């Protein structure tokens, strides 16, 4: 029955091997014995006083726990800070136990020490982590009272002071319905949920809360730690993003342009109302399907892997899914995100209404010109009539006075005015002639050069320098060559006359061509008389001529304007009396006429495989 005796020697071995330092001292605090663990920390110290070993003191500590145990015979546990054998500060837990002799007298005390330095450091680290972690951390007891909270929590929600969690987070008086801490208390597991709280300054705070159980030794959850991540900023960004998305959606949906977005495999992702109308297709059936070939410009079909490309066709024609040909302004672009191809967008603006308006405007302009012509007719006749009457008067009065010279003068006046009326009628008929312009691709520089050639001799004879300054890269344009030629002839002829009327030295007439801002410009500048302000207002009015001396019928500029208008262009001029004039024929390329027979070809640009690059 009796257990075999435990040999004392083995007990001594065990003491020697214990992980805690053990030392025994006498009433004079001198160390009488110690084990290996003690030596590991403090070194071999038998015979030295304890206060010297532990704390490097010369006298006993003022409130020596060993002395207290000698006095009252009770063991005690204390946390101490001392120095190890290398002089480093160490934290240790000491248990002081009285040792009695056979008579029951306390002769010695034993101190069993456990090194706490590593544990202390860890504790500090965790404390720092707890305090500084950038989320709200709180420890709750079963009553949901916050017994500990970290710095960020305290800053936002205030000192806990034993308040309820729901009071601190939300200013509530009762527990939240979906309390994650409650669940953790029940099942001992972590739970996460999203909450809206109120910071102590009253602002709304959004956070995601995670709970974790703090377990006691017996596995029961006595406390729960709550960690809440502030997502207020994220939430407001989210809300803004959502709003922006709604705005953008409304913009896209109600845009006047027809917008189609395709993904990288050319499936339709998005189509707005205008796109439905323009392409004559129901978006419900198209979205998610591969975009019809007619819808995707060649550039977008080809541009899959290369960098972003856009194509802009300001004036082209598409054939929609219902087979209608529609003039549009078309833009296509590929969409990339950080180098990866996402798809493309096709944006088309229906130009039908605009084209109609433009046509109406052109017609109105033309009608106005005709109206002015008709109004001016009577006045043109008046001038000639007066000349004829003058001739008649001179002839008759010369005859009745027997004044031969006067008769001759009258005859000449009659002749001159008959000539004038002939030219006049001819030019008027020319102006009124409904000639159909022949539109071809014409090199504007060549036309201008021909006109300059035509006037070279005449200018030289009049002592006027005729300069030609063509811009080298003026592209060919669709024009009625004969009409443009006539316009330039008129302008150059006017410019030469203006120089001849002026008495300034070294007169120059300059013919220039250039192309910029989408317009072809032909201009004729002179250093002649310039046009007086009052007359400037009237330069285009029919039969208005200030050339005097029977020159000019006043139809030149009007004819020029008519031809330029037929090309969708306008005549602009700048003039300063005394220092010359510049007349400028401006032709926006997108208003130039298109030759009838090639219209189809041109229209194919948008969907053709060759020309759809910008």
């Amino acid at each position, binding site marked *: 029955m009796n257990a075999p005796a435990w040999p004392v020697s083995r007990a001594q071995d065990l003491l020697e091997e214990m992980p805690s330092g053990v030392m025994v001292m006498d009433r004079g605090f001198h160390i009488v014995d110690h084990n290996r663990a003690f030596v590991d920390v403090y070194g071999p110290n038998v015979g030295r006083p304890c206060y010297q070993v532990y704390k490097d003191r010369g006298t006993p500590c003022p409130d020596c726990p060993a002395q207290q145990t000698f006095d009252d015979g009770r063991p005690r546990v204390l946390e101490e800070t001392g120095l190890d054998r290398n002089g480093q500060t160490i934290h240790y837990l000491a248990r002081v136990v009285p040792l009695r002799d056979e008579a029951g007298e306390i002769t010695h005390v034993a101190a069993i020490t456990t090194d706490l330095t590593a544990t202390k450091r860890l504790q500090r680290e965790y404390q720092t982590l707890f305090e500084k972690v950038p989320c709200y951390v709180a420890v709750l007891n079963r009553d949901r009272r916050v017994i500990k909270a970290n710095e960020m929590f305290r800053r936002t929600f205030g000192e806990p002071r034993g308040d309820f969690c729901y009071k601190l987070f939300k200013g509530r008086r009762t527990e939240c319905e979906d309390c994650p801490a409650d669940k953790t208390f029940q099942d001992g597991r972590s739970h996460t949920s999203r909450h809206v709280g109120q910071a102590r300054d009253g602002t709304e705070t959004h956070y995601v809360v995670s709970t974790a159980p703090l377990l006691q030794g017996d596995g029961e959850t006595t406390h729960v730690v709550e960690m809440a991540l502030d997502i207020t900023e994220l939430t407001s960004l989210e809300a803004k993003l959502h709003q922006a998305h709604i705005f953008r959606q409304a913009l896209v949906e109600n845009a006047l342009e027809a917008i189609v977005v395709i993904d990288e495999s050319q499936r339709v992702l998005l189509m707005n109302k205008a796109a439905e109308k323009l392409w004559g297709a129901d978006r419900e059936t198209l979205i998610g399907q591969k975009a019809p070939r007619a819808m995707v410009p060649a550039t977008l079909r080809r541009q899959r892997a290369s960098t972003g490309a856009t194509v802009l066709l300001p004036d082209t024609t598409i054939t929609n899914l219902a087979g209608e040909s529609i003039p549009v302004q078309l833009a296509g672009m590929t969409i990339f995100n950080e180098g990866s191809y996402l798809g493309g967008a096709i944006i088309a603006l229906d130009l039908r209404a605009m084209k109609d308006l433009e046509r109406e405007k052109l017609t109105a302009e033309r009608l106005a010109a005709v109206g002015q012509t008709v109004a001016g007719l009577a006045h043109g006749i008046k001038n000639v009539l007066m000349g004829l009457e003058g001739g008649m008067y001179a002839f008759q009065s010369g005859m009745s006075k027997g004044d031969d010279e006067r008769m001759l003068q009258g005859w000449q006046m009659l002749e001159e005015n008959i000539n004038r009326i002939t030219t006049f009628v001819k030019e008027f008929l020319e102006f009124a002639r409904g000639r159909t312009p022949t539109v071809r691709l014409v090199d504007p520089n060549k036309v201008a050069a021909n006109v300059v050639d035509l006037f070279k001799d005449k200018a030289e004879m009049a002592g006027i320098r005729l300069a030609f300054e063509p811009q080298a890269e003026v592209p060919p344009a669709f024009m009625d060559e004969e009409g443009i030629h006539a316009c330039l002839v008129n302008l150059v002829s006017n410019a030469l006359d203006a120089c001849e009327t002026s008495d300034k030295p070294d007169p120059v007439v300059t013919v220039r061509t250039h192309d910029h801002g989408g317009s072809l410009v032909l201009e004729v500048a002179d250093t002649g008389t310039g046009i007086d302000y009052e007359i400037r207002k009237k330069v285009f009015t029919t039969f208005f001529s200030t050339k005097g001396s*029977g020159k000019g019928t006043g139809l030149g500029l009007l004819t020029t304007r008519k031809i330029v208008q037929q090309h969708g262009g306008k005549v602009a001029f700048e003039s300063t009396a005394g220092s010359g004039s510049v007349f400028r024929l401006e032709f926006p390329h997108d208003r130039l006429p298109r030759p009838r027979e090639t219209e189809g070809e041109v229209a194919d640009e948008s969907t053709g495989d060759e020309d759809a690059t910008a």
Partner: protein
Amino acid sequence: MPRPEDKTILVVDDEPNVRDYLKMILVDAGFEVVTAGDGEEALERIRERRPDFISLDLIMPRKSGHKLLFELKRDRDLSRIPVLIVTAHANDEMGQKDLEEIMDSAVMSGPGTYLEKPVNPESYVRAISRAVDVEPSAQKTPRTDLKEQLEHSIEGASPDALREALAALRKAKSKGRQ
């Protein structure tokens, strides 16, 4: 009463035919006549010798009649010379505005009126004689009755009436063929 020979008339017009015609009419009426082809030249003539009357065209190169008038206005003495405007553009957008401006701003002394081309020689001489206070010479100017009538007809012609006339002519022509 002063005689026409004592009065110098400046005729300003850029049309040589008109200039010569008006000069002839005035010379036949006994006046002394100077001419100018535009406003600039007119100023030179006026400075050389102050005329008693100016017959002025409005729209001319270099310097218009409108401009000349406003320049004359700045000179106390020259602004008193009576002026008669002779224009072909009294009722169209080219001249109407300038003319109205001239009439409204009273820059012009003299008859304060204008004649529209083509002018009737008799009313032209009459207007000038009255303005410079002379008895017009008794010399008879050649009659241009038919032309005057024609003129009136042109002024009074309505497009509808013309169209009717044209239709009647066409009708007559087609009848003639039948």
